[in-house]
């Protein structure tokens, strides 16, 4: 690497403090590992990458916009590469679009589509490297239909109860679930009921759910601690139903609080580390670099986004500083045109959305979409069991303990051959 060439400054807006600081720490590690690996191989056409981190604290619009401005104005970053920030509602797109730099994030937001498609010229550099929250809805409905149609579980009825947190993410997922339910033979018997979150008090809404007697209960709030309390309060008087809890239940802290009550819970993520050779090797490198207590499945997001950006910038012949629209348009073009297999599945930007499409809900080809992974907690002290979709699943669905009294889980002749795919 030529020592005399100036480094390429890359910004990263990360919640290093505040309620999402645990995830923020992993996003930071992911960026560091990616940059170290890239620099070891010669950086960007001989120029070293230099990451600059901006704390987005509680991830409000003001904090995230301020972080973007600081990175652009003070550090002249060529790109901003993140994990996710909840809360800015795309307000950070404005300073980024004004500067004409590249922005890659995993905000998992439906409104990314609306913003980008409202003015593709202006937002040419804004990319969402994971599928929108919206896709959790139809993905989940297909998942429960798959359990039903393949006889892995016989629902007591077609009734579906949906509880939502009060963040846009939760409301969108809850609405999307409700919108797709009928098409697949499900009837929304309760909700979507929006509960003010954060909260640990769920007994009141759970009583209402019990009165509705659903076969499926979904809670789209996503804070690990809140969800753990929800689950503990559910098993106080369980129903004969599947329980699905949004993303937060993938966190270690969920099982730590919920303990035995966690067993049987279904949870999913549209962006998670795969357990194939690529994923395992990444996890080993990640843990070797940052210690065994690190969570590679979260750090993989910023890691892959940074790698993908670096490849695209190299293809484009280099990166562009703020104001260099022409060069950054070339980078954006390369990002859009490249099918990139990351450690969490394929990043392939939809030409209009500039967001990733999920597999199998949108694309039926696993090489063209990021898998919407369904997990089940089989043992609260162990990592989650990955039960769908093929070809990424490693375990199979079991009836949750609060339901197993009524029927016996059917042993699968072939533990991976569950989907008829």
């Amino acid at each position: 690497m030529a020592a005399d060439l100036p480094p390429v400054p890359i910004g990263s807006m990360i919640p290093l403090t505040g309620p999402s600081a645990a995830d923020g720490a992993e996003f930071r590690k992911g960026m560091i590992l990616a940059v170290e690996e890239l620099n070891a191989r010669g950086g960007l056409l001989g120029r070293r990458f230099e990451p600059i981190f901006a704390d987005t604290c509680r991830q409000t619009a003001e904090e995230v916009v301020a972080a973007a401005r600081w990175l652009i104005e003070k550090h002249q970053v060529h790109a901003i590469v993140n994990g996710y920030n909840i809360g800015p509602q795309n307000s950070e797109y404005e300073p980024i679009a004004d500067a004409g730099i590249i922005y890659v994030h995993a905000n998992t937001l439906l409104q990314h589509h609306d913003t980008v498609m409202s003015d593709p010229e202006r937002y040419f550099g804004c990319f969402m490297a994971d599928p929108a929250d919206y896709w959790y809805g139809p993905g989940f409905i297909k998942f429960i239909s798959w359990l039903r149609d393949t006889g892995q579980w016989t629902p007591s009825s077609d009734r579906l109860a949906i509880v939502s947190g009060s963040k846009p993410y939760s409301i969108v997922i809850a609405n999307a679930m409700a919108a797709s339910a009928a098409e697949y033979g499900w009837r929304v018997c309760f909700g979507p009921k929006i509960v003010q979150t954060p909260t640990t008090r769920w007994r009141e809404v759970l009583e209402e759910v019990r009165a509705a007697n659903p076969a499926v209960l979904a809670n789209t709030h996503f804070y690990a601690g809140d969800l753990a309390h929800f689950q503990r309060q559910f098993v106080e008087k369980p129903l004969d139903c599947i329980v699905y809890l949004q993303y937060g239940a993938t966190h270690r802290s969920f099982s730590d609080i919920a303990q035995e009550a966690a067993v049987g819970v279904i949870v999913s993520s549209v962006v998670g580390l795969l357990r194939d050779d690529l994923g395992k090797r990444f996890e080993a490198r990640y843990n070797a670099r940052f210690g065994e207590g690190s969570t590679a499945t979260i750090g993989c997001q910023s890691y892959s986004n940074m790698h993908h950006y670096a490849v695209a910038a190299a293809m484009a012949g280099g990166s562009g500083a703020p104001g260099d629209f022409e060069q950054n348009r070339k980078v954006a073009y390369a990002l859009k045109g490249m099918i990139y297999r990351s450690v969490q599945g394929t990043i392939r930007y939809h030409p209009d959305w500039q967001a990733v499409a999920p597999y199998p809900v949108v694309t039926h080809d696993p090489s063209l979409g990021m898998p919407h992974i369904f997990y089940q907690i089989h043992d609260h002290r162990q990592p989650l069991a990955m039960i769908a979709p093929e070809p990424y699943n490693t375990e199979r669905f079991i009836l949750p303990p609060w339901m197993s009294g009524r029927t016996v889980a059917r042993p699968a002749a072939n533990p991976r051959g569950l989907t008829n795919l």
Partner: protein
Amino acid sequence: MADDPQARALTLDATVLAGLDMLPDGVAIWGPDRRLAYGNGALRRSLDAPPAVGEAFDDFARRVAQSHELALMEPDDWVATEIADFGKEKSVDYVLAHGAVMQVTQRPTRDGGMTVAYSDVTAIKRNEQALRAAKEAAEATDEAKSRFLRAANHDLRQPLASLKILIYSCMREEDERVRAEMLHAMSVSALIMEDLLGALLQIGQLDAGRIQPRVTSFQLSQLFERLAIQFRHQAEEKGLKLRFVTPRGTVATDRALLERILSNFVANAIRFTEVGTVLVGCRKEGRMLRIEVVDTGRGVKDEDRERVFDEFYRATEERRVQKSGLGLGLNIVRRLAELLEHPVRLRSRVGRGSIFSVSVPLGNVWHSEGGEIEISETVAGEFAGVPVLLVEDDDILRRSMTQLLQRWGIEVHAAADEAEAVRLAAEGVSVRMIVADFNLKSRTGVEVVRALRAVFGAETPAMIVTADAEPRVLASIREAGLPVLIKPVSPPRLRVLMHNLLFEPGHAAGPN
């Protein structure tokens, strides 16, 4: 040397032989002693086991039969015939084991032997075959078309004749009511012709092989919903109950073609049922799903069961009483089902009703194509279906703001001033939020919000937007307890404020 006759003969002989060797066809010259006198290069190349010079013809024939190089039905008979036919004039085509076609032509020579030519005619035969198939297909299509046009002609003439009479009468008719009736009858005739032409076009496309099925996995419920919308009124008009038992599960077939099959079944069921119910439901049969259309109509006689699927077929009694049926629907069903390879069945009892069914393969739910591919905030955005009252006196701003909010799925009730807003509220428009401009013509937005809340009788969440960034103005709005955004309104900021007001009131302080 050229003058030496013997030498000349030898030279000539060598030249002739070299020339014969270059012929594309195999040539064998058998002597009067039935032994091979000469075989050229092409002969050696065209047969796996060519005859050697001096070999007896009879031995060669036996050897060929045993080698199975030629596809022969009765090898022993063939050998006997070949031996008997030595020296006779004949020409036979043989199919070789590897599929090529060889024409073997033999002619007697003057000295009692014979010359045999072996020609590869594979390409010629294939062309001939293709031409013959094309000719047969053309003749069959022509015949079908003629039969079809004769029948279509008859069915098309009837509504056309009525139409002509109706137009003529209508031109003279003075009475408005009678004219309206005639116009209605004309539109019915035109519809019948349209249906007929549509059906003819479909059949024409099917015959021409232009319809290529596109098999996908999807939920039948979507299709049932469309059929319910399509046929609800027809059934109601006849006083029939039309019920769809929505199935669970995924099917794998061509969605549009299956819809055509089912819509023909349902149309028929409604047409031939006078009282009772038409029920559409499903049964699982192994890896297939049988979709049944059950009616309580007049039923189909045993002898008609096959013929109902023919073109322009109509039962005799129907010809007398019904004029609307074209007799093409079930024929289209049969053609489409054949194309899709879906079994079609009919069970029926005269006077009790019929069950028409089509069986389709079950699909994989993960591959199911739903309506979700068109991602949009109007479907599942956080504000989808939320009613909002917008008060803005600037026409352009009101229009652009309405468009923005509608894109987010909001149900917008827009008013230009207080009077219009209050009228909307008084008329019963119920909203979950008010967005008001501050500088309205004679009033401030704060006053309008107050007036609207009085009409609603509730503290409806509200916000003010203003182009006036004067600190005194902003302070007065905040004093009234209302959050404020300064124009031009940034969509993300508007979104955040709306979210907070609607879903997280604790966070709803004005960001400005």
